[in-house]
């Protein structure tokens, strides 16, 4: 069982899939964004020149859909100012200068073993720990996890799916975590299921990662509390890791367009989020570090790094050996993977809670870098429609947006697009179909005055 559409891009995972997760030394400076997640922007709770300790709350979340932000290290608040943000352009950030002799946080996967029992924790305790730990979805969207874990009597969650697909090319951070932090992820999974009183638990992993599937099967057999968890090998296909696609593949349920998985009684969590939940609930550690894959042919020593949130992309690239000579001349730096990531122009952009990878592409991978768009006319081949996992008429929407006909785009369900980029990937005319649809969504939101200018 699988979803309709999808593509098979070359995955380039061999670059980093055997690189163990490495810890890094103290950073030179951290820029911690006040907007790292979907929902209300945090309010800074520290002032300039304040001393902060590791794990201290520096950004307060006042709204329900929001998550507090913590300092990863002890140090001094240097400034609260505008900083380059991967999505918003320029946004407020807290700049922290680490103290001398700062030791970086260690990976705590070793503290979870197969004796773990979720019954020690009540649903309320789990919810509070997740809220106070500032945990957000770490797969990319960044939706505050506590909102997802709040049991809603009107639509009870019966199934929890842990998303270990990682279908995006180049990225291997989730894969390494699944191999190295298996027990921690299982603990987080059980806690999430416990908070929602969900009976069925699945872990969905693409069938090109047999080692991860094996690791989970072994760990589940050992852990008494986790015996009911089912590991499902799903077809290797992009975008298998999209939550709607994964639900379709595992449960054969369609999430209604415009709806969210809880409407069909399903919760989908990324493996990194599950690991963070376990850490926050059991050890009380807030989310301040995350695993980031630095990969691409433009990087000298690609690898997976356990880095503090707020570290500059440039600094992280230096840790991975820096750019190759070829990439130093001309390269495309992408925050995220090549399919859904954002190209960034400023290497001072910090890592946020949602950035799982930095991909540096050189001419070898992206063909000759285009100086002028070489978009040609649509030849009506319909390939974008064939590959669309949401069964949309992508080309129709893209052309409607191009000619500023937003009502027609909306008629063809523009807002149901998940922005996976399959249509742009297959387009033989080089039309940036997904780009036009994204633009259309912004224009529609602006028309409805949902978005500030």
């Amino acid at each position: 069982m699988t979803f309709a559409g999808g593509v098979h891009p070359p995955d380039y995972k061999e670059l980093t899939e055997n690189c163990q997760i490495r810890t890094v030394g103290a950073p030179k400076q951290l820029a911690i964004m006040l907007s790292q997640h979907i929902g209300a922007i945090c309010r800074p709770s520290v002032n300039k020149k304040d001393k902060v300790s590791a794990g201290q709350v520096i950004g307060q979340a006042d709204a329900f859909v929001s998550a507090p932000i913590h300092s990863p290290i002890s140090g001094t608040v240097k400034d609260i100012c505008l900083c380059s943000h991967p999505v918003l352009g320029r946004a407020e950030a807290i700049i922290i200068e680490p103290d001398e002799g700062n030791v970086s946080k260690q990976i705590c996967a070793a503290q979870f073993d197969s004796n773990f029992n979720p019954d020690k924790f009540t649903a309320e305790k789990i919810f509070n720990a997740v809220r106070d730990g500032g945990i957000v979805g770490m797969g990319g969207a960044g939706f505050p996890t506590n909102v997802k874990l709040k049991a809603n009597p009107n639509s009870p969650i019966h199934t929890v799916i842990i998303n270990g697909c990682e279908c995006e090319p180049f990225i291997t951070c989730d894969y390494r975590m699944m191999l190295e932090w298996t027990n921690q992820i299982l603990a987080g999974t059980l806690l999430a299921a416990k908070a929602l009183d969900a009976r069925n638990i699945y872990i969905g992993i693409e069938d090109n990662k047999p080692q991860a599937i094996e690791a989970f099967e072994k760990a589940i057999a050992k852990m008494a509390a986790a015996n009911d968890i089912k590991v499902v090998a799903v077809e290797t296909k992009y975008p298998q890791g999209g939550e709607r696609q994964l639900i379709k593949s595992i449960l054969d349920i369609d999430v209604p367009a415009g709806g969210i998985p809880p409407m069909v009684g399903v919760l989908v969590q990324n493996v990194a989020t599950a690991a963070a939940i376990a850490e926050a609930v059991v050890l009380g550690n807030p989310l301040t570090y995350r695993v980031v894959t630095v990969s691409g042919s433009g990087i000298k020593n690609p690898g997976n790094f356990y880095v503090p949130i707020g570290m500059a992309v440039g600094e992280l690239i230096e840790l991975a050996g820096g750019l190759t000579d070829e990439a130093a001349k001309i390269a495309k730096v992408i925050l995220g993977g090549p399919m859904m990531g954002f190209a960034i122009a400023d290497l001072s952009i910090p890592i946020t809670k949602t950035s799982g990878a930095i991909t540096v592409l050189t001419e070898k991978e992206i063909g000759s870098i285009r100086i002028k768009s070489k978009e040609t006319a649509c030849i009506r081949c319909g390939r974008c429609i064939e590959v669309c996992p949401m069964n949309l008429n992508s080309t129709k929407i893209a052309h409607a947006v191009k000619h500023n006909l937003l009502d027609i785009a909306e008629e063809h369900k523009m807002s149901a697009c998940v922005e996976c980029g399959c249509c742009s990937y297959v387009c033989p005319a080089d039309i940036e179909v997904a780009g036009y649809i994204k633009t259309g969504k912004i224009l529609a939101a602006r028309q409805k005055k949902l978005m500030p200018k």
Partner: protein
Amino acid sequence: MILADIITLWNSSWPAGVTMLVLGVGFALVLLIASIKLKVEQDERIDKTLAALPNINCGACGFAGCQDYAKMVVADPTLLGKCFPGGVKTKEKIAEILNLQISEDSAPKRPIVHCAGQTEDKTLFAKYDGIPTCTSANALSNVQACKFGCLSFGDCVASCKFGAMKIIDGLATVDYEKCTGCTACVKACPRGIIEMVPFAYDKMMTVACRSVESGKDTKAFCKVGCIGCKLCTKQSEAFVVNNNLAKLDYAKYQPSEAFETAMNKCPTKVIVYRGKKI
């Protein structure tokens, strides 16, 4: 011979002709009765108002077109003066049709692009090769260093129905001779740097910048950005510096020496004139 043919034709086809005639008259009568019985009363002022409007359907008034606006303005006289392209003349004409008194005229509003950065002034971090519209480029971070500056892909040019917007040297420029003040460009700009300003004079002074970055960053990103040095505030109270950005209160502006001095003293030359005959 010809006459004989015509007579033959007449003899053979007159019943058809008469039938058509009877049918025609019959239907005409039906339509005549219907038009009298089912007549929809329409205010004749609507047609007159519509004739007085420019009929370009630009939508600046906020209604679907001139016809829609004519209907609404007849029903609700407070909407008078919403037609920007028509300006004062149209307003007077409509007021005459509707028997309204018009209050003292305020200055007509025209857009000002609050950016002075031309291609050579701007700092670019990278080359953008995506979809060439401002909205698309703005969705991607740091296409150009200044987040508040004109992106120069011309969304405003595409939106202008009067050909009054042009991108000159990487900066959106308004041709005030052609501009009617319809506000389409204000709505099109994703960065919101175009603002409607009451033009009390043919040319207005303005602080052509919207950057609230610190002075140091503004200077690093653009040669002609406002760095918030407050020199202008010493010349006139009309200038207020807030959040590293000077703003001119347009209501207080009048051509005078103090404003000229402020303009000349501005270290980044970001205080400029905008308007006709620069």
